[in-house]
């Protein structure tokens, strides 16, 4: 099997690809309840990531580097949030990568988002996709699923979580200024989180 660093680099390269492919959709979602820069911000951030900082001996080191790049390059709220997530996940990911270890590291990344943003599930944020994904991933690993199946379930949970933000009223971020008018729109952060989790399925098995 390829090195864990190679796997992590493949994951973020796939994230960069899907974020670029879906840039207009993310921007349109953000135009409805935000400031219409989410697609461009993420595209710029992940382009910076793939253009240089994915070097590292282990997956954990690669992910910490990705986090630092996102924090310095995105320029919007998703930079510190996703940056902290990748950094925390990278710090928590031990070698050799196992299913249990991966699920725990993923959870650490998701918890970093909640801690920095002081947000919780149901606030209509990226956490509404990330927390169900983290639970699905951990549950699949506990059941003994292989990486491919665990990632498939996580991706499915993230997509369902993102779609479930549509009726919610935003309690965090710029959308929260809209109050009840934020309902009826999918949260762009949850939508991009679902893309990032979905990219796991294309990156191949991590353990």
């Amino acid at each position: 099997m390829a090195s864990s660093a190679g796997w992590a680099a493949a994951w973020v390269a796939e994230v960069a690809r899907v974020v670029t492919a879906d840039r207009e959709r993310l921007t349109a979602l953000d135009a409805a309840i935000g400031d219409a820069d989410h697609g461009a911000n993420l595209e710029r951030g992940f382009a910076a990531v793939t253009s240089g900082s994915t070097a590292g001996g282990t997956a954990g080191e690669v992910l910490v580097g990705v986090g630092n790049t996102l924090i310095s390059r995105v320029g919007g709220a998703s930079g510190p949030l996703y940056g902290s997530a990748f950094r925390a996940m990278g710090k928590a990911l031990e070698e050799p990568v196992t299913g249990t270890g991966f699920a725990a590291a993923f959870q650490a990344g998701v918890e970093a988002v909640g801690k920095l943003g002081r947000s919780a599930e149901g606030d209509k944020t990226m956490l509404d996709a990330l927390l169900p994904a983290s639970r699905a991933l951990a549950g699949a690993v506990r059941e003994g699923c292989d990486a491919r199946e665990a990632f498939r379930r996580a991706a499915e949970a993230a997509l369902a979580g993102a779609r479930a933000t549509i009726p919610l009223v935003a309690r965090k971020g710029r959308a929260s200024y809209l109050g009840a008018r934020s309902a009826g729109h999918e949260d762009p952060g949850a939508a991009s989180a679902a893309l990032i989790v979905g990219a796991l399925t294309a990156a191949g098995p991590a353990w």
Partner: protein
Amino acid sequence: MVGVVLVSHSAGLAREAAAFVREIAGDDAVVGWAGGTGDGGLGTSVELIAAAVEGAQRGDGVVVVPDLGSSVLTARLLAEPGVVVVAEAPFVEGALAAAVTAGAGAPLDAVLAAALEAWTFRKG
């Protein structure tokens, strides 16, 4: 002397608000600012904020006063207990209260408290 750093999505807003605060708080106050993405756009740059915090550090700590959104999140990333603290306060009133208190020689926790007290200020 505790430093105060104003952080805004807009370089113009941060610069002018800092000038205004400095004018009222007096020459003794250490007031810095960071705004925008660094390439002229609206947004937040962790490098610019870190540099402003470093520039306002006189050894007694720095209170960062962000405007909203990613300014707050990025400022939180730079927080170090007892060294760099984030005042989640009204931008103008909070920065002004912090700078006046800092200029009077108050310690870090008192400067932070002064900024947070700005939530209770009335316009007159």
